[in-house]
């Protein structure tokens, strides 16, 4: 084997080895929750450690918004399977409404989630109002539990 060829072989072997190790570590990493975004049912299942600051994601439950004095507000976030009461004080985004996806940051205090920030997440669907109403009537029962 010529020296050049040997050198090239070693380089290729090294690169393949590195890619292999990197892939293995990535596969391990992907099995963990890294976004720290939990759904209400995950919280109820005890997947969030005590006292942790994390983000909760889900849909604002229909007719659950209670506005208190000044800017305090309480609502229930649901993922279809579990409900979690969220309390927040501050200005809410325009999109915040019932049946809207939200992401709130905060921590558990007892059995309720106290948020320091509430952001509204809109989906990637864009539909004219009348079309949405027509669709809404047709699929009134189909609440997407995914978000």
């Amino acid at each position, binding site marked *: 084997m010529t020296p050049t060829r040997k050198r090239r072989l070693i380089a290729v072997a090294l690169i393949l080895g590195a890619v292999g190790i990197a892939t293995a570590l990535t596969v391990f990493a992907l099995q963990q929750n890294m976004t720290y975004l939990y759904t209400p049912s995950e919280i109820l299942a005890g997947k969030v450690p005590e006292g942790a600051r994390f983000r909760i994601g889900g849909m604002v439950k229909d007719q659950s918004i209670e506005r208190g004095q000044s800017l305090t507000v309480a609502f229930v976030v649901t993922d279809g399977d579990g409900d979690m009461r969220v309390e927040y004080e501050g200005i809410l985004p*325009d999109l915040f409404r019932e049946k809207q996806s939200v992401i709130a940051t905060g921590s558990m205090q007892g059995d309720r989630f106290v948020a320091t920030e509430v952001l509204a997440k809109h*989906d*990637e669907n864009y539909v004219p109002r009348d079309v949405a109403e027509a669709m809404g009537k047709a699929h009134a029962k189909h609440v997407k539990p995914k978000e």
Partner: protein
Amino acid sequence: MNKLTLWFHTLGSPPYFHRLAGRLAPWLFAGAVLFAAAGLYGGLVVAPPDYQQSDAYRIIFVHVPSAWMSLFIYFVMAVNAFIALVWRIKLAEVLAMACAPIGAAFTVITLATGAIWGKPMWGTWWTWDARLTSELVLLFLYLGVIGLYQAIEDRRQAARAAAFLALIGIVNVPIVHFSVKWWNTLHQGSTVRLLGPSAIDASMLWPLLLVALATKLWFVASLLVRARVELLALEGGKEWARAEAQRAEGTP
């Protein structure tokens, strides 16, 4: 020499490219303005309000095409950078370097309009989620390529060094694109998909595609104009460049 390489060499000859680009660019610009006007009219006037976001969603018509371009241009830049580094073709170096400012412009538009859109809808100008952060890194990469290109005295060497940086930065492009898939973040997923049905009503889709087409044409036009100037500066000592300078004196 086969036909393809012959064609490539003719096109790669600076005076020929200069002439061709000078002839094409105005038409491309005109087309871009025409399509953009039609698309924006369709988006801002004709298209109905969204059921969730009402009229605020109309920012999509400038935000999304710019975002596509910010990634697309980086890809074009990296391809040219690769060609420049491997085959040392001058035109490829020039094209790669001409991509950077245009890409940076579209990235700035994407970030600015995104922030403006985020404020009323999400409730924040900025959030450090994966999509936004990686797009910001994309801007830094563009600026790094421009900065490196400006900083080195020898133009060819500067182009090669900056092209190398551009190639390293290509890692970021898939991260930007797939960030909404890989991380569940505030930014919504892709609306318009190449495969499968798009998640946008047809009445809103056609203006979006028109503006997207306009930005593509604009990119090509701007690329040609910028590459043209760069070639002129690079080949200042050559006969054709001198002739061009004399010819342009009469028509300022």
